[in-house]
């Protein structure tokens, strides 16, 4: 490794590692009961959980991914910087009820929540598989991203595996030692480091370009170039384009049509529906931090950092060939290596905050939702923790191996994570709000929805191509993100099947859970007109911010090609438009959280049932027939896939 340009990064990484291991030790000492490892004894402080949820939702995915995507795809993609409003919306709608049910009935995974309410075990299995997708695909993708940035900084391409495995090794050590409590403590520190990194990067962008006005002058010069419109740098490329999809037919003026933005915004809704965020949420001792976390920490503070900082960094990189973050940090290398190191540590923290949580969640879900109920009933808690630790290591090794050796595969897998998590929305709606949705509907919806996601995204198209079936469409046909296709098919299935299966699609405890939720339901707003007004505001905001109305932003504050003279706000119209909608969005989240009481804690205390409603344990032996049946299924499936790909594949 070329240590020269990395001396300060190495030094700061040592300090960061010492802090991380210190907290792993502290948390481990506090894990006095066995089940503390996976849920921290459900005693995590509400403010920690609020900050941690924000950090894990943003992660390296936004900090590393968004600036580069804005730089290469323009401010059309930049509309998704409204993530500061879109992402917490899921939390506002579902967090409170999930926490209440999990606390009352002592559920410790998202799968148990679903199984406890809907009955059966199928939804829990799907939830566990989505958790694994996050642990391998999403984490692997981020490990690859941080490895690439650090490699660029070290100016030696051979260092990539060293950086990926160094970050992974530190991650493994603290997750395996202290479990969720370490993740909870560290998520606060890591989130603060993320904020510092975003603020630092945007500050240096402004210094480098000579101030905000100069940055906009550079953008104005770029807007006058004929390619800028074709590249979609400064505007949304229409409402929809009926193209066959990326890889087959490129949309004109960039892929960021209004419909593409809407469907990608749906993918953003997936992050807080994922099992990993639920895991952190239900390990919290009180729901009192949800409203403040979603409104002030996420929407206001991090929303501002994204809408100003991340977009500024991305805009700075527009029209340049080099990757924006590495080139920015390399500029800092010569004069201010200590600031480069501070930002680099923030980026590492951004990756680790989500990797640690997703690995632990996946390991816990595999043990609690699949292995124990299907293959080893009555497995003692101590063994569950041991198996969980082994699972964490195996998942991390797979993720790091894929990140090191197979960047294409990991990017395809990682891209599936958010659309897949979004498919849990109907299940969450059924659990938290509408009794109408039945188990059969949720299971069928999940299956069809996930299939639709698969065949409209890279991964599924590649798999089918491998088996010899070349689809006539590419990725995101009709400029609709796979998340949008999946949710559309999913909801359609759920509505039809629910209507058919009314009255027989819930567990025995479901009426009790429904009564409990009704008792703790949000207090009705004082004015009768407030409720319809709130939902109208949500729809209006969605229409203008990420729906077809977003196209108004193209010219609302001036025509892009006119430059600063024609830009009313001194910046590109679309950027000013999303800033305006961010302000309105913060107000919207506050209104839903506090005024509609969707995220404020219930005045009635939630106490845990003395007799949890988990299915009874029948025996303590490993269920050999089930295990053998599973192994035979895997063998036959592998054989069929091999034969099909040999006969039909290219």
């Amino acid at each position, binding site marked *: 490794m070329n240590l020269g340009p990395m001396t300060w990064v190495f030094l*700061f990484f040592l300090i960061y590692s010492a*802090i991380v291991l210190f*907290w792993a030790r*502290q948390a481990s000492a*506090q894990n006095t009961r066995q089940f503390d490892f996976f849920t921290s004894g459900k*005693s995590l*402080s509400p*403010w*920690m959980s609020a900050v941690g949820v924000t950090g894990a939702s943003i992660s390296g995915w936004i900090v590393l991914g968004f600036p580069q995507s804005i730089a290469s795809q323009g401010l059309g993609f930049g509309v998704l910087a409204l993530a500061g409003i879109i992402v917490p919306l899921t939390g506002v709608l579902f967090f409170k009820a999930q926490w209440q049910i999990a606390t009352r009935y002592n559920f410790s995974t998202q799968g148990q929540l679903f199984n406890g309410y809907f009955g059966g075990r199928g939804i829990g299995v799907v939830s566990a598989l989505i958790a694994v997708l996050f642990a391998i695909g999403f984490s692997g993708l981020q490990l690859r991203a941080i490895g690439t940035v650090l490699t660029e900084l070290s100016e030696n391409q051979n260092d990539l595996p060293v950086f990926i495995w160094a970050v992974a090794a530190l991650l493994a050590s603290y997750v395996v030692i202290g479990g969720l409590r370490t993740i909870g*403590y560290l998520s*606060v*520190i890591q989130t*603060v*480091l993320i904020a*510092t990194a975003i603020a630092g990067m945007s500050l240096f962008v402004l210094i480098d370009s000579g101030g905000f006005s100069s940055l906009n002058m550079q953008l104005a010069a770029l807007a006058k170039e004929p390619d800028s419109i074709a590249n979609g740098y400064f505007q949304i490329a229409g409402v929809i384009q009926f193209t066959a999809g990326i890889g087959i037919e490129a949309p004109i003026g960039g892929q960021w049509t209004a419909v593409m933005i809407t469907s990608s915004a749906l993918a953003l809704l997936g992050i807080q529906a994922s099992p990993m965020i639920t895991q952190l949420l239900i390990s919290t001792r009180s729901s009192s931090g949800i409203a403040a976390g979603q409104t002030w920490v996420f929407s206001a503070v991090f929303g501002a950092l994204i809408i100003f900082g991340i977009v500024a960094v991305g805009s700075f990189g527009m029209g340049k060939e080099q990757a924006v973050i590495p080139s920015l940090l390399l500029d800092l290398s010569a*004069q*201010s290596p*200590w*600031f480069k190191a*501070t930002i680099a540590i923030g980026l590492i923290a951004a990756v680790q905050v989500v990797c640690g949580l997703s690995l632990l969640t996946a390991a816990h879900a595999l043990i609690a939702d699949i292995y124990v109920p299907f293959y080893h009933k009555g497995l003692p808690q101590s063994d569950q923790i041991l198996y969980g630790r082994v699972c964490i290591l195996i998942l991390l090794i797979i993720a790091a191996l894929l990140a090191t050796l197979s960047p294409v595969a990991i990017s395809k897998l990682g891209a599936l994570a958010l659309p897949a998590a979004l498919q849990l929305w109907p299940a969450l709606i059924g659990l938290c709000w509408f009794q109408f949705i039945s188990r059969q509907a949720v299971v069928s919806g999940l299956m069809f929805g996930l299939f639709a996601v698969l065949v409209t995204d890279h991964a599924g198209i590649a798999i089918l191509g491998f088996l010899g079936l070349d689809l006539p469409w590419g990725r995101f046909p009709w400029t609709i993100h796979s998340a949008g296709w999946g949710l559309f098919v999913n909801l359609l299935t759920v509505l039809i099947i629910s209507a058919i299966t009314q009255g027989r699609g819930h567990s025995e405890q479901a009426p009790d859970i429904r009564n409990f939720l009704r008792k703790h339901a949000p207090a009705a707003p004082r004015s009768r007109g407030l409720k319809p007004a709130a939902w109208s505001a949500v729809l209006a905001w969605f229409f203008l911010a990420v729906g077809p109305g977003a196209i108004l932003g193209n010219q609302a504050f001036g025509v892009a090609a006119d430059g600063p003279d024609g830009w009313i706000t001194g910046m590109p119209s679309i950027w000013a438009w999303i800033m305006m909608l961010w302000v309105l969005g913060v107000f919207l989240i506050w209104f839903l959280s506090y005024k509609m009481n969707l995220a404020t804690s219930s005045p009635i205390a939630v106490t845990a049932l003395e007799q949890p409603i988990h299915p009874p344990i029948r025996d303590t032996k490993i269920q050999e027939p089930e295990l053998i049946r599973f192994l035979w299924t895997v063998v036959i499936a592998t054989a069929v896939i091999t034969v099909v790909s040999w006969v039909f594949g290219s």
Partner: protein
Amino acid sequence: METEKKNERAVLVFCNWLVFGLIGLGFLLEGGSRENFLIGVIGIVGIIAGFVVHIIINHISSTGFTMGEVALGLALFAFGAVTFILSWIIGAMSLVAFQIGLLQLAILVIGFLAYVATRYGVAGAFRKFDVIGTSTSGKREP
């Protein structure tokens, strides 16, 4: 629950110093390397902000500085002072870096004295360090 609260406070302290400490240190080094007094002063302000936030955290959690924090703080102060003096003696420091370092050390000393004086009173603060006049039982000799 007591340990939980202690840990929550400690997490806040870590966050505080990771932000203000790193930023302060960065600007101090930046000021020294660029020979720009103003940038160095920003670093000093960063360190002071770290202390102020630390005191606010102490106030919120109804505690003072822990023994470990005091020990670490004094050790870092001693390390900084020794490094500063050695650099000055061997002449490895520019005039601006010298001024920044001197100002930093002076502010830390004055800030420390002001803190103990406001917290314990002048006489009380003196008694904290009055080893000779204090018996082993902790009571003042007649």
